């Protein structure tokens, strides 16, 4: 085979895209949507590790993780609504969900999960909220009245009842968090027309990367908030979180690579097109960024952090750095799956290109705003729900 012939194959394979596929329909908003729901699911799992699986080391972040999840959950639908051509018709998904559509369940799964999360927060915080209600003045009074559901009863009997409900909610919360995110993976994994998406591994990968992004988000925000407020950082908690992050990330990365490896090894008629995609337009964002810089390096760092006894200040610095890198890895993975999958034409003879713009409806600026909103909301929530047990004498007393 002479080089000229090889060139001809490359052009023949890379130059034909069906005429309606030049435009990438699912753009940045649909990259953010699984990213945000992933963070929600992951943060909830952190909380459940304490509430259900009784990992005592995670107690300092067990309440915070729930509020953190709520802050992101509140904006999980924002990118979807911005993406829809007719957001005013969005409620049709709730009113007339098609039983055959993988997407139609989202409204109900999301709402059910939101109810469980909000209830769990309200029940866990109830003694604290009741105490705060007594001190509250002005507009805070009706607010705390609503949040305590008009109750001031913190008797042993009442709290025992609450505890049963909390355990129940946390227990059903885990399968629900998994469903929420595994399901988001299935929205992609169930598209048989797209060979890059259509793999049963897709929900698994989405779920694992969700756990990873949630744990990383908790580590990073916990260290940052505590450092800036000059409060005590529970290093045992951080070290445990890093170990969980390492474990989940190993699984996540292995499955991500396994998916690609099986495509390459089985090399069906789709593979040529997929190879051209991974080594063509996705080369930098997938191989260089997602795999090498933001997966291999964090894996090594996490291994060292988990296995070697390092000074606290090192763990704090490298732990937050590696968490930040993993948050980038996950968004890169979302990008490479969501955008990458659409770059390949269903003609399997070529791919299109995608360059996000700063100032468009689904552009970069809007994406940044959407990612900042949960952080702003988290700050507002911190004024209502004290994150840390050591600030909260009521809860401290209740729990001891």
């Amino acid at each position, binding site marked *: 085979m002479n080089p000229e012939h090889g060139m001809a194959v490359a*052009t023949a394979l890379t130059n034909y895209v069906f*005429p*309606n596929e030049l435009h990438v329909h699912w753009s940045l908003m649909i990259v953010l949507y699984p990213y945000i729901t992933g963070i929600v699911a992951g943060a909830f799992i952190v909380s459940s590790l304490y509430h259900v699986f009784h990992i005592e080391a995670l107690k300092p972040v067990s309440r915070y993780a729930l509020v953190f999840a709520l802050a992101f959950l509140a904006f999980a639908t924002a990118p979807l609504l911005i993406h829809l051509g007719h957001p005013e018709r969005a409620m*049709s*998904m709730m009113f007339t969900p098609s039983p*055959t*559509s993988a997407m139609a369940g989202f409204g109900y799964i999301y709402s059910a999960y939101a109810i469980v999360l909000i209830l769990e927060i309200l029940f866990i915080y109830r003694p604290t909220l009741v105490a705060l209600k007594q001190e509250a003045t002005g507009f805070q009074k009706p607010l705390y009245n609503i949040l305590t559901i008009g109750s001031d009863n913190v008797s042993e009997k009442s709290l025992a009842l609450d505890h049963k409900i909390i355990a129940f909610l946390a227990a059903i919360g885990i399968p629900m968090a998994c469903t929420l995110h595994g399901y988001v993976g299935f929205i992609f994994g169930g598209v048989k027309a797209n060979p890059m998406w259509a793999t049963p591994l897709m929900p698994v990968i989405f779920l694992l990367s969700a756990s990873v992004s949630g744990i990383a988000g908790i580590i990073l925000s916990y260290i940052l908030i505590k450092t800036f407020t000059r409060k005590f950082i529970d290093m045992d908690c951080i070290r445990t979180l890093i170990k969980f992050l390492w474990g989940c990330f190993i699984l996540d990365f292995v499955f991500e690579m396994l998916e690609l490896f099986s495509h390459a090894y089985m090399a069906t008629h789709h593979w040529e097109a997929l190879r051209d995609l991974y080594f063509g337009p996705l080369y930098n964002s997938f191989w260089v960024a997602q795999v090498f810089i933001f997966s291999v390096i964090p894996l090594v760092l996490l291994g060292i952090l988990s296995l070697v006894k390092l000074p606290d200040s090192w763990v704090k610095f490298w732990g937050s750095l590696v968490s930040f890198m993993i948050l980038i890895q996950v968004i890169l993975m979302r990008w490479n799956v969501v955008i990458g999958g659409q770059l390949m034409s269903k003609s399997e003879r070529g791919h299109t290109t995608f360059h996000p713009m700063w100032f468009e409806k689904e552009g970069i600026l809007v994406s940044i705003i959407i990612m900042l909103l949960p952080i702003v909301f988290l700050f507002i929530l911190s004024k209502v729900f004290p994150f840390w047990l050591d600030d909260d004498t009521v809860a401290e007393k209740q729990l001891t």
Partner: protein
Amino acid sequence: MDSIEKEISRGRRTFIKKVLGGTVAGSLLLVIPAGAMDLANIPEQITGMRGKTGPFITEKKFAFIVDITRCIGCGSCCVADKNEYQVPDGMYRTWVERYVIDDEDNVYVDCPNGGLDGYQEPRQDIPHPIRDTFFVPKLCNMCEHPSCVQVCPVGATYQTEDNFVLIDAKRCVACGYCIQACPYGIRYINPETRTADKCSWCYHRVRKGLLPACVDVCPVQARKFGDLNDKDSEVYKILHQPHVVSVLKPGMGNKPSLHYVGLRREVV
């Protein structure tokens, strides 16, 4: 018509109520919208369609056949389609692809502007002698098991009982899931209505006894549309003769009802 007359005799008031409520199926056929085409001047191309009411045409079994051994790539079909639906630039309900296969078995496909401007120039970028070249018109495959209908979360894309896959532009939320799900890349978001859109085999024309616009204008009869229940129809004859007849991407399991005569294995 009979059913409507029966309805009228049953009670004018209730009938009008039903018409206003839109529950008498096909009743709006009686209302001629402003600017409508005068059908009196246009002979019926599909016999027995005019005056038919009811939501579905069950006594006919429509088939669409594309004969790629006849297509000359003139793009008449694309022009007619764009005119019929005023399709925005850059979106295509139907298009015509040009395939070129060289002696080394390399396949080159192109489709500048969906074939709307025809093919004026041969491809210059092919380094080997050309073995074969042909045109392939593309349009909605009207799958028996349509993925677009399966994935539509709100029931805005639906399949009628007479096997047309249509879009309800009043309910589509434009989530774009159907675009991802269609194995044939037929769908697009219409920027004017902000809803999903695609070829409908000119359902509105068929229901009024006219052939789909692309079929009507094809100068070489490469596109054929007809009733498989009619043994004299061309589509019936083609499917009952030993032609090479196939569908696109049969492995998808969608069971397209769009058939191709002379389909080559290189075509996807």
